[in-house]
């Protein structure tokens, strides 16, 4: 049994109560959501909060709802809920693709989207997904609510704009018509963190050309979308040649490190290979949804 350093524990009863507790217990207090990132770090004594504020009773943050042209996801929504949602699958198959390869059922039953984004692990999949989908993070603190783009929210590995006394409340994803998306990951084993992964979202215009595109990469040292591909792809009909070029740009844009999961050139190769695959899949899916609508 791995044993964490001593800490105190309290259960929050509401968002306001959680914020008050964070304020009261100060710098060394942390909220715990699913606990699947925080508790392993505590057991290894890499994280040593004095206070754990448990937000698992905040059922008001556990929801998925389509609100006009936005999908609103409460911060306490579990991975499993995202994986099993038909709305999510229809609107954003990239989320379903990603959730299918996030850890295992035990982790997915507890782990939350809020915890995932706030942890901001470089190999964490939902950050890439949210970047690609141009999600907005709703953060609440003593001074009220702020809305942050992913670029503002996500500051780098293990770093976000959420202050110690704030909570991530909700993630909002804009719904676009004639669009689709995809995610693919290479891992050494199911439940292992990504060697590398890529996500893409595309919109097609009435002529079948790409009107909007975003490509993101996971675990290869890039905390932003591969914006380089936009100029190449937008306005063009999707072809293998274009995907190949996009893959090349992605492999140049990333900045991976060598580790037990693989050497740098392999990871760059995966950035290329997976970018091509997700663009291909996203365009295929988008084209299918366009034809569905016209029928």
């Amino acid at each position, binding site marked *: 049994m791995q*044993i964490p350093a001593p800490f105190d524990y309290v259960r929050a009863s509401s968002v306001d109560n959680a914020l008050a507790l964070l304020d009261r217990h100060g710098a060394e207090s942390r909220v715990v959501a699913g606990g699947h990132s925080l508790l392993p770090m505590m057991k290894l004594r890499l994280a040593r909060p004095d206070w754990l504020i448990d937000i698992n009773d905040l059922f008001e943050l556990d929801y998925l709802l389509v609100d006009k042209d936005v999908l609103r996801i409460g911060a306490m929504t579990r991975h499993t809920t995202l994986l099993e949602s038909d709305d999510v699958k229809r609107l954003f198959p990239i989320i379903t693709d990603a959730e299918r390869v996030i850890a295992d059922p035990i982790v997915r039953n507890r782990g939350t989207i809020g915890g995932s984004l706030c942890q901001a692990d470089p190999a964490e999949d939902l950050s890439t997904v949210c970047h690609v989908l141009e999600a907005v993070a709703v953060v609440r603190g003593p001074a009220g609510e702020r809305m942050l783009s992913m670029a503002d929210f996500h500051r780098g590995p293990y770093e976000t704009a959420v202050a110690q006394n704030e909570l991530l409340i909700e993630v909002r994803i804009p719904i676009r018509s004639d669009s689709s998306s995809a995610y693919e990951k290479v891992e*050494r*084993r*199911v439940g*292992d963190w990504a*060697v590398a992964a890529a996500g893409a979202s595309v919109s097609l215009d009435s002529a079948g050309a790409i009107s909007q595109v975003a490509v993101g990469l996971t675990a290869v040292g890039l905390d932003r979308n591969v914006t380089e591909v936009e100029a190449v792809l937008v306005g063009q009909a999707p072809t293998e040649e274009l995907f190949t070029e996009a893959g090349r740009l992605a492999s140049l844009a990333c900045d991976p490190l060598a580790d037990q999961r*693989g050497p740098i050139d392999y990871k760059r190769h995966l950035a290329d290979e997976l970018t091509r695959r997700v663009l291909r899949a996203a365009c295929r899916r988008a084209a299918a949804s366009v034809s569905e609508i016209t029928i």
Partner: protein
Amino acid sequence: MTILEDRPSNPAAGDHDRPVGHGRMQRKEDPRFVRGKGHYVDDIVLPGMLHGAILRAPVAHARLVSIDTTEALAHPKVLAVITGSDLQALGLAWAPTLSMDVQAVLVTDKVRFQGQEVAFVVAEDRYAARDALELIQVEYDVLPPVVDARKAMDPGAPVIRDDLEGRTNNHIFDWEAGNKAETDAVFASADVVVTQEIVYPRVHPAPMETCGAVADFDPIDGRLTLYETTQAPHAHRTLFAMVSGIPEHKIRVVSPDIGGGFGNKVGIYPGYILAVVGSIVTGKPVKWVEDRSENLMSTSFARDYIMQGEIAATKDGKILGLRTNVLADHGAFNATAQPTKYPAGFFHIFTGSYDLAAAHCTVTGVYTNKAPGGVAYACSFRVTEAVYLVERMVDILARKLEMDPAELRLKNFIKPEQFPYPNKTGWEYDSGDYEPTMRLSMKMAGYDELRREQKEKRERGELMGIGISFFTETVGAGPRKDMDILGLGMADGAELRIHPTGKAVVRISVQSQGQGHETTFAQIVAEEIGIPPEDIDVVHGDTDQTPFGLGTYGSRSTPVSGAAVALVARKVREKARFIAAAMLETRPEDLEWEKGRWFVKGDPSVGKTIAEIAMGAHGTVALPEGIDGNLDAEVTYDPPNLTFPFGAYICVVDVDPGTGHVKVRRFIAVDDCGTRINPMIIEGQIHGGLTDGVGMALMEFIEFDAEGNCLGGSFMDYLIPTAMEVPDWETGFTVTPSPHHPIGAKGVGESATVGSPPAVVNAVVDALAPFGVVHMDMPCTPARVWEAMQGRTRPPV
């Protein structure tokens, strides 16, 4: 050894529906396990029990400058902090290993691997014990480590074992088997010779339950009760008596339910000794249970063999000879658990299943700044490395000769009429009939169809691979004339008592870690004396309650203890005959046995069941001369030879050409372990071993960085397979009984771990043939496979 009755072994074994005795039945131990009611070391709670925790070295090689325990001792819940110098004063700082070396219990002079034991804290609870570790101040003077075994013997390499007198290098042993001159001659005359460096990287058994102990020393009567995660309780008791000075009759070792061993729980770890010292020092019971990282970083690893393989053949595919030079990384202490005479275990069975003209191997063991161990992970004393070497070499030869690997194997198998077969390195294979087993696996796989599919796929640029492995194991150590561990012969005892009502208890000296002993051994007795397995209690794991024997590892329980149990049951059956004769007022020779009952020849209606005889024995029947009033017996079994199970495995993989990701699509395993006692338990053993094999082939690896930091210290870094990485296993069997085992059974616990890694790797290499790949070392992770596709295969160490 006397076999009371020579019966033909049972050709019907493997038959599923036999009510009493051998056959498929659910495991007697499972009701408690599936209900979560198993009772493991960590479940033991004794009154007043304290908790220990070990401070471990953060670096691989360093001189210990100072330890300051003042602050830890000041912790309100800490009762004792024990350091190496405390142990030195008691003469307990060093303990003998199972390979005649010594290992530091706590560091006195120098840290020799990362994770080595530095100090032991005893506290009121495990939280306080763990917290107090952070209050111990240790100063280290860091030294350059020896990480790469290839550099261990370089002149000028740091000398790790300067504790051993006169040591000037990191050499442990040189060992050889076979005939060098004959082998060289065969190679010189061969048409074809292929050579390949083959690395079996360091892996770890990673049992679900980590190691631990509860030590309870009673200062009044000087009695030590030690609850331990051990695969060999009797051997541990004797060794504890020898080391600690506590007399053996005052020591009781109890091995309760064990959550997996795989050889990880054979040796005596410093933690066990420290729990005992902690209990002696405080006068209270002390529990120590290691955490996952401690288990992975400090307890017995497996493999770590760098093998230079060479195989010689004629151009039409007759294999002539095999030779290899091995560099073995044994870590900082030579703590390998193996029979004394065999520093490389049973590696010299590396001639495999083939009839060769000559073979020769040398093995050199070296010290490095890594955790000690070596023989573990269901390896059958390094048959794993041997089988991997020969099965890879045969595949490489097949490629060179442009022959189908199945055909090459079929052509070179030892023929059935050659058994008992003396191989070129000193083994005598007891029995075998390889071709039908190989053919059955090919039939189950649809081998020709698979090759056709592969051809079509290759034309489309898809990467599909088919890998074969045909292994011969050597298990059931072992004959006392050849084998001992630290002077203890490798025999096992069994005691059987039939209670007056015909229920029975059998006490055995081997210890289950999940193998199903409580069922299998009851079935062996049931088969012999004809009472239902449900009526037979199997007692194991407690030295106060069981006869002496060397324990469970190396697939030895059924070959050794299983034989003891069959023989003790036959002894009881024979005694029952005399008692039955007295009861029936006839002569013993006029009685005939049918399962469960002695009856009068020619008049089957007149007879006595075992239950009636047991009541008679304990009752008032006038017993014949020399027969005492019970139905009990005991036996100690010294096996005349090892047993040689074998099997044919075929693995089918698909490799993603864009990512290098390997998917094991199918795995066909045909095993021959002789007589099959409980086919369901055998299949369970095979399923587990195959999963291990896929894990080793694809992902498992204890890696170190240049500073000697262990990079495999958690399950985030040391990957073990899940249900998602393995296919539905397709198992089959043939039955070639062991001629010398009382019931013809051979061991099977490690067959699949031994036999499966080469099948997977052969399949991966076969898939990569279009890239010109002839070999790649494990683990076949996506990155390493992709590198192989780029022509950049590299050894893992």
